[in-house]
């Protein structure tokens, strides 16, 4: 009974309210400690030497002069990170990405590192390291990389997902196909077919806090790592594996995280910090500069996508296909595969085929970015959907409603949907006042839908009742945006006590069992579910304590509104016992009262959103301005509505930046030209309007409160919503993201020509 995950409808008392967050005070006073905000006595400063070449053989690294410099305590190369990966190719890729072994694979690839008594000494030491490179031909463009004469990025990679197995290496790391039905027949049956190709450029998650850590490893094999991360347990496992340490002997403490969005789910330089510390036998603080964050962490893929949709004049889609080329950076990934899975997830299609090509290029190893791979696929598909609607003279929203997926639809990636929110979000769009707002001169309106999966995963939590009846929660999912508040609300709800009596702590890796990362919109969903079960375990114990106190069978005790009640006429003289009463008496009823839960939260639902935006394009300069923006998304159950709104608005803002301005610019030598916030232009306060939000609540049948993950889906529709709006104003279909002023200008000029 305690671990029943099925949704049960109920009136909530705490969940759904908007109390202030517990970490707010520390964050507004500067007391909160992020990755770079801690210091250890005797700490050294670490710095990393990085390749300036996109692709080069490393023939020699001479560290002798650096090692002799006064104040330098350790210098490492890949020799200090021996290969312990034992055939695990993903782990080997991580190892090679942390530090180049025989080849530098992208501009920014780490080749050596030093630890010294201060920053100037460390910088001097880097300059004294002599690296001899033989420059190799490189490739940075996703379509160039699949040409037959393209330089091979990884000679050990052979295309997977094709039959027969290939005999020579390829930059196509993987081919993934999804779909069902017969698209050939479907296209034959269509009255109208639209075929179009799209490109999107590489972007970065753009978190304001660079990666930083403080590592301390002793010669006894015990170590500590303070680090900004979305998953300290996963980091522990990976770092321990790479360094040959026992997992239990490495304690990882997560700092407050200054933004992650998926980019802090992978290790980048943490193994280097640990290796330096181990060699120097002193703590090493390693902080990335902003330049390093752009060049040497995990941005998204750039993409090249071909879409084909066939439709009958009555508006029903007869067939849809997509060929998606995504780059993975220099190491194989699943990014195109994810794009192929999500492309048509919003629609009910009889015939659909999507093929994803994961392609290697000489760029940094692609990392997850908030609903990874979905925004680009949505841009291509949702832009084409509008083209099709226009061609048959149907309103774009009605066209989507006519073809929207619903409960019982076979999804384009395989499984059949349970209750989902795409229909309701579209209906809400139609009703929303934004759709009726008057557009001014040079303004256009666009809308689009988006989809993303939600995950569960391994989760472990403790709930302890203190002697005064207040409650501590110990959780292992890092708080990115307010989950401590939501988890406290959930515990308060279950126990029937005020929110203010609950304190939620994020533990280090030594204090709890394994917890998966805070990603995949799973933080509140998984830890929340685990807290519910831990609370129910605690309630079972509380009822037993009450039963013992009264001397009655425990089946006669119920828990209601924070109190144990003896039910039945024969017990009517017994006064109820509060949580505080039972806590105070706990030493005589069996000791400390607690609830623990270790679960694999699974069967998380899927999440849909629809966005509307109005864009103004200056007729002379093609500069764009976002005039109005509305997010409508299904949250299942909004535990703390302010924070759900915050997720909607934040994701939309990132999507807006991606759609209009953000891109990685490489020169002909494969060097990143804009590794800084001046030229990698993210939205600033004056770029954006207020972002309206509407939270829909279609309960997730697999969560006791109906909670769905909300963090990611809101970044999926913006590229397409804005694409549709800009195309509306410019009078030409925009096919290349970001739709920066020069691109809009060119598109208009090309059409006029």
């Amino acid at each position: 009974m305690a671990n029943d995950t099925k949704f049960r409808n109920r009136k909530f008392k705490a969940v759904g309210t908007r109390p202030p967050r517990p970490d707010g005070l520390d964050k507004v006073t500067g007391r909160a400690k992020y990755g770079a905000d801690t210091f250890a006595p005797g700490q050294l400063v670490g710095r990393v030497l990085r390749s300036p070449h996109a692709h080069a053989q490393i023939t020699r690294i001479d560290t002798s002069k650096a090692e002799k410099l006064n104040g330098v305590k350790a210098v490492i190369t890949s020799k200090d990170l021996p290969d312990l990966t034992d055939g695990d190719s993903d782990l080997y890729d991580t190892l090679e990405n942390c530090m180049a072994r025989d080849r530098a694979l992208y501009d920014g690839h780490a080749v050596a590192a030093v630890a010294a008594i201060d920053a100037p000494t460390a910088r001097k030491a880097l300059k004294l390291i002599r690296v001899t490179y033989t420059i190799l031909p490189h490739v940075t463009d996703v379509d160039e990389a699949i040409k037959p004469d393209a330089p091979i990025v990884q000679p050990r990679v052979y295309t997977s997902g094709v039959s027969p197995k290939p005999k020579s290496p390829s930059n196509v790391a993987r081919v993934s196909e999804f779909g069902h039905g017969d698209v050939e027949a479907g296209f034959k049956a269509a009255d109208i077919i639209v075929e179009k190709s799209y490109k999107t450029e590489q972007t970065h998650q753009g978190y304001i806090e660079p990666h930083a850590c403080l590592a301390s490893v002793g010669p006894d094999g015990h170590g500590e790592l303070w680090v900004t991360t979305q998953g300290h347990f996963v980091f522990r496992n990976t770092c321990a594996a790479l360094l040959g340490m026992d997992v239990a002997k490495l304690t990882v403490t997560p700092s407050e995280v200054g933004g992650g969005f998926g980019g802090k789910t992978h290790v980048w330089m943490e193994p280097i910090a640990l290796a330096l510390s181990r060699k120097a036998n002193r703590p090493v603080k390693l902080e990335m500069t902003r330049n390093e964050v752009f060049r040497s962490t995990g941005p998204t893929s750039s993409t090249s996508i071909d879409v084909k949709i066939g439709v009958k004049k009555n508006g029903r889609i007869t067939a849809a296909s997509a060929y998606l080329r995504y780059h993975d950076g220099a190491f194989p990934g699943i990014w195109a595969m994810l794009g192929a899975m999500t492309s048509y997830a919003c629609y009910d299609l009889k015939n659909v085929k999507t093929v994803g090509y994961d392609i290697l290029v000489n760029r940094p190893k692609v990392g997850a970015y908030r609903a990874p791979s979905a925004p680009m696929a949505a841009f291509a598909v949702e832009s084409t959907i509008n083209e099709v609607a226009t061609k048959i003279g149907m309103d774009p929203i009605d066209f989507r409603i006519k073809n929207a997926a619903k409960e019982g639809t076979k999804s384009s990636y395989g499984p059949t949907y349970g209750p989902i929110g795409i229909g309701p979000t579209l209906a809400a769009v139609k009703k929303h006042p934004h759709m009726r707002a008057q557009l001014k001169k040079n303004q256009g309106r666009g809308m689009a839908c988006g989809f993303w999966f939600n995950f569960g995963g391994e989760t472990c939590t403790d709930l302890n009742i203190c002697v005064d009846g207040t409650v501590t929660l110990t959780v292992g999912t890092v708080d990115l945006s307010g989950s401590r508040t939501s988890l406290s609300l959930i515990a308060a709800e279950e126990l029937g006590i005020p929110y203010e009596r609950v304190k939620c702590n994020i533990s280090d890796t030594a204090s709890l069992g394994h917890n998966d990362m805070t990603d995949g919109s799973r933080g509140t969903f998984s830890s929340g579910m685990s807290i519910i079960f831990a609370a129910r375990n605690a309630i079972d114990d509380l009822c037993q304590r009450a039963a013992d106190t009264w001397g009655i069978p425990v089946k006669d005790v119920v828990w209601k509104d924070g109190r144990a009640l003896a039910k039945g006429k024969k017990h009517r003289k017994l006064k109820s016992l509060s949580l505080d009463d039972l806590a105070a008496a706990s030493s005589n009823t069996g000791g400390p009262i607690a609830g623990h839960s270790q679960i694999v939260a699974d069967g998380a639902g899927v999440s849909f959103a629809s966005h509307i935006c109005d864009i103004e394009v200056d007729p002379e300069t093609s500069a764009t301005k976002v005039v109005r923006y509305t997010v409508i998304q299904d949250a299942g159950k909004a535990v703390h509505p302010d924070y759900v709104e915050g997720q909607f608005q934040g994701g939309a803002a990132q999507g807006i930046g991606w759609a209009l301005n953000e891109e990685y610019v490489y020169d002909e030598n494969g060097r990143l030209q804009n590794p800084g916030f001046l030229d990698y232009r993210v939205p600033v306060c004056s770029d954006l309007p207020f972002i309206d939000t509407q939270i829909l609540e279609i309960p997730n049948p697999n969560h006791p409160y109906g909670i769905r993950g909300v963090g990611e889906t809101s970044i999926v529709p913006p590229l397409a919503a804005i694409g549709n709006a800009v195309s509306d104003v410019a009078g030409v279909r925009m096919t290349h993201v970001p739709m920066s002023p020069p691109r809009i200008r060119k598109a208009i000029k090309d059409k006029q020509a």
Partner: protein
Amino acid sequence: MLKVCLSGPLQAAADGAASVSISAMTIRELLRELVEQYPGMQKQLDDGIAVSVNGEIFRDSWSEEIPESAEIFLLPRIQGG
């Protein structure tokens, strides 16, 4: 007997079949039977797999019971951000 549909990337490991027949009561049994019938599937499991049972996606709960005549779909393991 359950009809287990395989998503594109997994079909190659099952000799190109789009679906296979397996008898199993839990996800764990299902995967064990699958690997017995198609040894090539072990690599897919090691790489990471997700199982959809009647539309719910399970990435780790291998003790999850499978209702009779459930729709089963095997997907590659998905990752979030």
